C-alpha cells in the first residue's frame, strides 16, 4: 500500500496547486482590517489576529446562518500555519455554503482562493464513521511573514440547543473580536463571560453584539492552565418570548435539573437488559461476595470492551444518546456512553442502581456551574449507588440518592475505586431525572497515587553496581505504568525499560524486567535487575563518587523562566524512593549531603542519608498536592523544584580506609 499513500500525497499536492488568480481585490472588510496597526509584540508571537467576527442570524424556522470573517497578520515564518480557513459542519444537519480566502502580500498583491482550493475532509480521519466534516483552505505554503490572510465563510445549521459559544481569542493577540446574534423580533438573549470580566452586549432591537478589543497574546508556559481557561469566552442563551409558538421548537436550559431531565430521556430507554446481558452478568458476578466485588466484575468486563465510536445522526442528537445495551453487548464494542449504559444495564440485572454522569474529560476546571448546558461535556462515566458496606476513595454523597461510587467505564487503566486524574475534582452532571445535579467529582489523596521505589545496590571497589529495583505503584501512578505497558509490545517495553535504566546508569546490562499488573487492586509492580560497570567514579585511586539517586528526577517540572504570566497547575502525586547501597569493602563514607526538607502549601519534599551496618541508605519523599498556584507565588514553586533537583544531583563520596 506504500505506493498508494505516496501517490495520494502527490495527487493531493497536484490537485491543490492549480494556478491561482492573482491581482484580485480583497473585500473591503479585509482591506480595513489590514490597515490596522497592531502594537509591537514579543518576537516569539507568530501572528496577530486583526479581526475575527461571527454574525449569527436565527430564522423564524429555527435555522442558524453564520457568517465568519477572519483576518490575521503573519509576523514570523512560524505564523504561516495560521494562514488557514477552517469551517466544520455536521452532515445531514448543516452545511458550509461558501468559503473564500485572500492572501495580501506586502506589495499589495492579492491572491484569491475559491472553491477549487477548498478541501473537504473528515474531522477525525481515524474514525470509522464521522459525521463531523471540515471545509478548509490551506494557504500556508503561499504565506510568509508580513502577509495578511483573511477568509469569509457562510454556513447553515439546525442547532440542537438554543445555546451558542464564542471564544474571543486563541493564543494569538487579537485586535478586534466580535460576536453578533441576530434574533427574530421578540426573542431575547443572555450571556455569561468566562475568564474575563463580564462583557455586556450592545443591543439593537433583537440584535446583540459582544466585542473585545486589543487582547494580548496568551504565552505558552509549562504547567500552565489550558488555554480554554485563560482565553475570554462567552456562553450565550437565547429564547423566544414567553408563550410564543416558537418556544416549543427551542431547547434551552435554565438549570442543571433541566439538563438532567433531558439527558435522562436519552439514556434511560437504552438501558434495557436482555437475556444475554442477564446471563453474562450472572456469570461475571457468580463468585463475587460483596457489592464492590460485583461492581468490579461488571466494570472490568465493560472496560475491556473495545472502544469504538460510531454515532449516526449526531445532528439529531444521537451524539448524546447511547446505543442500546443489547447492541453494545452483541458487538462487544462501543464508546463512552455505550459503555456506561451497558454497565448500568448489567448492574440493574443484579439490583444495583447506577446513573450516567456526563463530564468534561481532559480539564477538570473546564465545566462552569453558572452555565447549564450539555455542550460543556465530552465524556460519560457512571455513578453506582452503593451501600455503606462499600468503601472506596471515589464515593461521593448525593443529598437524595445517597452514596455514589464514581467510575469511568472507558478508561481501562483505572479500576473501580479510582478515577482518572483529569476527571478528579471536576464538575460533572449526574443524569438522574429530577434528582440530577451538577456534582464535584472525588479527589484521591497524593498517597493513593504513590510510586514506592525500593532499590538494593551492591557496589564494588571499582564503582560497579548490581541493582535490584522494585517499583510499586498504586492509583493513578499505577495507571500510568499500565498505560505504557499496554501500549507497547513486549520487546518494545523491554527496550524502553533498558533505555530508561541506561539514562540513570550508563552501560547498564538489564537482566530482568518483570512487570506485574494487578488491575483490580489498582496496583502495578515492576521488578528490574541490572548491573552497571562504571556507576561510581574512582578518583585518585582512593575516592568513589556517585549519586545515590540512581533514577534521576522524581518530577520533571523545569521552571527556569525569570518571569511568569500564568498560574502553575500541579497534579496530586506521591513518590517514595529508598536506595540501600552496600558499601564496598575497605571504603567508608567521607562526605554525604545534608538532609533536606522542603515544606510548602502545595507539597513537601525530604531527602535523608544514613550510614548503618555497612549500608548507605538514601531516601527521598515527595508529596505533591493538586493545586493551582497564583502567579505571585511563582518563586516559591520554582525554588521548591530547584531544591529538589539539588538533592537529586548531590553526590556521596567514599574514601578508601
Amino acid at each position, binding site marked *: 500500500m506504500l505506493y498508494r499513500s505516496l501517490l495520494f500525497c502527490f495527487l493531493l499536492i497536484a*490537485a491543490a496547486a492549480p494556478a491561482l488568480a492573482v491581482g484580485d481585490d480583497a473585500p473591503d472588510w479585509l482591506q480595513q482590517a489590514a490597515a490596522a496597526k497592531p502594537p509591537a509584540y514579543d518576537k516569539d508571537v507568530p501572528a496577530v489576529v486583526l479581526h475575527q467576527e461571527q454574525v449569527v442570524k436565527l430564522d423564524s424556522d429555527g435555522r442558524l446562518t453564520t457568517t465568519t470573517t477572519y483576518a490575521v497578520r503573519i509576523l514570523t515564518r512560524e505564523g504561516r500555519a495560521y494562514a488557514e480557513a477552517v469551517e466544520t459542519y455536521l452532515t445531514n444537519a448543516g452545511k458550509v455554503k461558501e468559503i473564500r480566502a485572500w492572501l495580501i502580500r506586502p506589495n499589495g498583491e492579492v491572491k484569491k482562493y475559491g472553491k477549487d482550493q477548498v478541501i473537504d475532509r473528515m474531522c477525525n480521519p481515524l474514525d*470509522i464513521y464521522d459525521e463531523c466534516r471540515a471545509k478548509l483552505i490551506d494557504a500556508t*505554503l*503561499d504565506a510568509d511573514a508580513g502577509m495578511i490572510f483573511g477568509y469569509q465563510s457562510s454556513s447553515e445549521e439546525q442547532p440542537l440547543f438554543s445555546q451558542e459559544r464564542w471564544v474571543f481569542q486563541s493564543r494569538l493577540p487579537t485586535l478586534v473580536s466580535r460576536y453578533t446574534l441576530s434574533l427574530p423580533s421578540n426573542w431575547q438573549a443572555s450571556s455569561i463571560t468566562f475568564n474575563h470580566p463580564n462583557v455586556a452586549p450592545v443591543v439593537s432591537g433583537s440584535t446583540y453584539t459582544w466585542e473585545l478589543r486589543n487582547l494580548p497574546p496568551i504565552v505558552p508556559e509549562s504547567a500552565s492552565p489550558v488555554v480554554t481557561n485563560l482565553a475570554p469566552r462567552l456562553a450565550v442563551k437565547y429564547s423566544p418570548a414567553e408563550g410564543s409558538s416558537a418556544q416549543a421548537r427551542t431547547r434551552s436550559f435554565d438549570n442543571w435539573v433541566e439538563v438532567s431531565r433531558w439527558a435522562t430521556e436519552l439514556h434511560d430507554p437504552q438501558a434495557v437488559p436482555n437475556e444475554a446481558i442477564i446471563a453474562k452478568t450472572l456469570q461475571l458476578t457468580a463468585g463475587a461476595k460483596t457489592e464492590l466485588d460485583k461492581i468490579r466484575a461488571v466494570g472490568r468486563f465493560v472496560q475491556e470492551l473495545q472502544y469504538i465510536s460510531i454515532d449516526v445522526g449526531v445532528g439529531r442528537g444521537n451524539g448524546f444518546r447511547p446505543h442500546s445495551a443489547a447492541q453494545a453487548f452483541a458487538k462487544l464494542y462501543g464508546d463512552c456512553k455505550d459503555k456506561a449504559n451497558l454497565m448500568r444495564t448489567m448492574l440493574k440485572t443484579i439490583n444495583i442502581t447506577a446513573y450516567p454522569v456526563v463530564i468534561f474529560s481532559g480539564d477538570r476546571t473546564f465545566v462552569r456551574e453558572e452555565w447549564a448546558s450539555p455542550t460543556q461535556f465530552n465524556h460519560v462515566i457512571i455513578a453506582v449507588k452503593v451501600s455503606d458496606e462499600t468503601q472506596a476513595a471515589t464515593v461521593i454523597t448525593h443529598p437524595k440518592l445517597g452514596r455514589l461510587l464514581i467510575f469511568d467505564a472507558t478508561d481501562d487503566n483505572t479500576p473501580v475505586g479510582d478515577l482518572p486524574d483529569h476527571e478528579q475534582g471536576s464538575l460533572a452532571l449526574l443524569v438522574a431525572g429530577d434528582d440530577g445535579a451538577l456534582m464535584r467529582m472525588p479527589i484521591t489523596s497524593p498517597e493513593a497515587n504513590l510510586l514506592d521505589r525500593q532499590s538494593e545496590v551492591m557496589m564494588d571497589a571499582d564503582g560497579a553496581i548490581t541493582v535490584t529495583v522494585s517499583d510499586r505503584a498504586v492509583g493513578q501512578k499505577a495507571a500510568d505504568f499500565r498505560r505504557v505497558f499496554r501500549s507497547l509490545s513486549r520487546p518494545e517495553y523491554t527496550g524502553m525499560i533498558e533505555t530508561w535504566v541506561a539514562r540513570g546508569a550508563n552501560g547498564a546490562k538489564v537482566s530482568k524486567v518483570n512487570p506485574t499488573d494487578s488491575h483490580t487492586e489498582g496496583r502495578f509492580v515492576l521488578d528490574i535487575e541490572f548491573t552497571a560497570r562504571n556507576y561510581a567514579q574512582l578518583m585518585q585511586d582512593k575516592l568513589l563518587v556517585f549519586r545515590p539517586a540512581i533514577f534521576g528526577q522524581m518530577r520533571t517540572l523545569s521552571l527556569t523562566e525569570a518571569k511568569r504570566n500564568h498560574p502553575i497547575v500541579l497534579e496530586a502525586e506521591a513518590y517514595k524512593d529508598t536506595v540501600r547501597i552496600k558499601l564496598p569493602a575497605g571504603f567508608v563514607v567521607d562526605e*554525604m549531603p545534608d538532609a533536606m526538607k522542603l515544606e510548602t502549601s502545595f507539597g513537601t519534599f525530604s531527602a535523608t542519608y544514613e550510614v548503618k551496618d555497612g549500608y548507605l541508605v538514601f531516601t527521598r519523599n515527595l508529596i505533591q498536592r493538586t493545586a493551582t498556584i497564583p502567579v505571585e507565588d511563582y518563586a516559591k514553586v520554582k525554588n521548591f523544584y530547584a531544591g529538589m533537583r539539588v538533592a537529586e544531583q548531590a553526590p556521596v563520596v567514599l574514601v578508601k580506609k
Partner: protein
Amino acid sequence: MKFSHPLATLVAPVLLLILLAAPSVLAFKDEEWRPIDPAHLALKTPVVEKDADAEVIFWEVRIDDGERGELEESHYVRVKIFTERGKELYSKIEIPFFNFTKIKDLAARTIKADGAIIELKKEDIFEQTKVQISGLKLKHKSFAVPGIEPGVIIEYRWREVVDGGGGGRFQLNFQREIPVQNVTYYVKPFSGIYGMRYMPFQVPDSVRFTKDKDGFHKISMSNVPAFREEPRMPPRNQVRPWILIYYSSNVSQSPASYWRNLGQRYHEFFKEWTKVNDDVRKAATQIMGDAATPEQKLDRLLEYCRTKIKNVSDDASGLTPEERKKVKDNKKPSDTLKRGVADGGEINMVFAALASAAGFETRLAFVGDRSDIFFDPSFANASFISPSVIAVRVGSQWRFYSPGYNYVPAGMLRWQQEGQQALLADETEPAWVKTPISAPQLSLEKRTAKLRLDEDGTLEGDVRIEYTGQFAIERKEYNDDESPAEREEILRKIVKNRMDTAEVTNIRVENVQDPAKPFVYEYHIRIPGYAQRTGKRVFLQPAFFHRGIPALFTQSQRQHSIYFHYPWSEEDEVTIELPAGYSLDSPDAPAPFRSEKVSDYKATIGISKDQRTLVYKRSFYFGDNEAILFPPNMYQPLRNYFDRVYKADNHTITLKQGAATAQAPAK
C-alpha cells in the same frame, strides 16, 4: 509477455516464464470463507515470535494485471489475536482508496475460541470520503471487528479494482508490523508488449515465483517476524524483504546492457545541455582568474555556481511556489549565466559546461540515494538512481560535484550520494565509479566554551559551535526556511533537552544560508547546579558539551545492522574559570582510546599558569576508512565502545576548598 527477474540472465537457472493467455480468474470474489484449522483456534501462543500480541496466519494478495485498463487486487487476511493489545490493534479495519478505485466484496468475521462465528453485517461497513479536493477523493471503507477479544481469529477479505490501472510498478512487501506465518502473492502480468520483471530484495534464494493456475504466478514467505525500527539502522528498503515488479520492453537484457544503453542515451542529452559557446568560454576564463591548479579552477567554478546563480530549487530561495513556476527554463548554459537564475539541474549543467570550456572532461553521473537503499548496479531499473551529479576528470581520477545543491562543499557530495556506485554516462562505454565517502575531518563539530564556575555550582559563559561538511549541510537545510526566532528556539530546545535548567540568551545563528561558510551557533549560557557541592568539595564534569547527552546505544538486543550516515569528527575546547578559594584536587583526564582504523578519542585537562582556569580539550572522530556500516554481530563491541566514550565524557573532577592545585599540567 514475459515475467522475469533481471538477475536471471546472470545466474542460472533462468527464470523466464512465457505466460500463456488465460482467462482471468477473480480471486476470492465468489469464494467462501476457508475452513478454520482447529489447531489455529486452539493456539495459545504465537508461532513466529513468542511475545507477539497478534499474528497473521496467512495474508494472500492476488494482483491481476491481465486485463487492459484494469488492475485488480484481492486480499484475504486471517489473524490470530493473543493479547489485549492485539485486540486493540485489530479492532478497527480501514481500507483506503481513491475514487477511481472500487472496493468490492468486503467481508469479515470473527471466530471465537469455541468455534462460534460472528459475521460482520453489511450495515456495519461504512464508506466515507476522508478528503476531497477538486474532484479527487480519498475514501475509505471501514468497520469495527465484532466480538474481538484475545483468543479469537479474525479474517477479512476484499477486492480493489482500479479503472485505468495496471502496467505500472508494484512493491510486494513480505514483512509487516506484526509477525506473519505465511504471506503469499499471486501475480498475473499484463499481456501487452512489455514483459513483467521482478527484482527481489532481502528475499532468500529459495523464495521464488512458481507458476500457478489461471495465468498467475505465486510467491510465498513463511515465518516472517514483525518489522521493528531500531536506532541507527539502514533504510527500510535495505533490511525488509520485498520485491519490485515492473514492466520492461526487453526482459532478456542484462543489467550491464541496460545501464550501457541508458548511459549512452543520456550522454547525448548531456552533450546538448552543456554546449559550450563563446559566452561560456569567456565566463569560465573570467571566473577561474589566476587559479593555477585544476582543483583551484574547479573550486572557483563551483563557488561561482553556488553563490552567483540563484537556485530556485532551494526551498529557502525566498520564492513562493507561484514565483517558482514563473521562472523561465534556461535552454542552454549561456542562458543560465546570463539570467543568473536557474534550478538545480540547470546549475549542474552550467557547471559542467564551464568545466568543459576550461578543458576538463566532464560526465553526467547517475547516483543512488543511500537514505532509501544501498544501490547496486545489478538493480537494472533507472528509478534507483538519478542524474544529479557532475563528474570531472582530474588526472586519472574522477571528482564528483553537486553544484545544484547549494550547501555541498567542494570535495563532497550529500551523504546520501557518497559511497555509491555512480554511472558515468558516455557515448561509447558508460562506466561505474564509486563516489568516495568523505573523511571524518570534513564533517567537523568544533565547539568552544569560555565559562566561569561559581561557588554554588552555577556555570556561566559564552559558547561557540561551528559545523562543517555533512553537519553543516544538515543544519543549514533544517534551519534555512525558519525565521530567526524559530532558529533560536530550535537551539534553545537542543540545549534545554540535555540541561533543562539552562538559561540560554544572546543567541546568534550564523551562515544559515551561506553556501561556503560553516554553520555557527553562538550563545550565552547559565546553568544553576551544574557542579555538585558537598561540604568540602565541588564535583565538576569538564566535558560541558556532553552533559546530559544519553548513551548512544542502550538496548541489549539488536536485529539490524548498525549504520551511521557519515563519518564525523568533534573538537572541543572548554575553559572554566574556577571559583575563588577553590582549586583542582589531583585532576586526572580519562585515558585516550581508539578503535583501530575507525575511531579515536582523546581528552586532556590542564590548568592555566595562574591556577585559576581549567582547560579541557577533547578530540574524537568516527567512521574513518569509510567504516559506517556494521553487521548486527558488531553491536556489542560498538555499544561497549560508545559506552566508553560516554564514560569518558562524564568523567568528573574534584575541586577542593583551599587546597593547592596538583598534577594538572599548566597551559
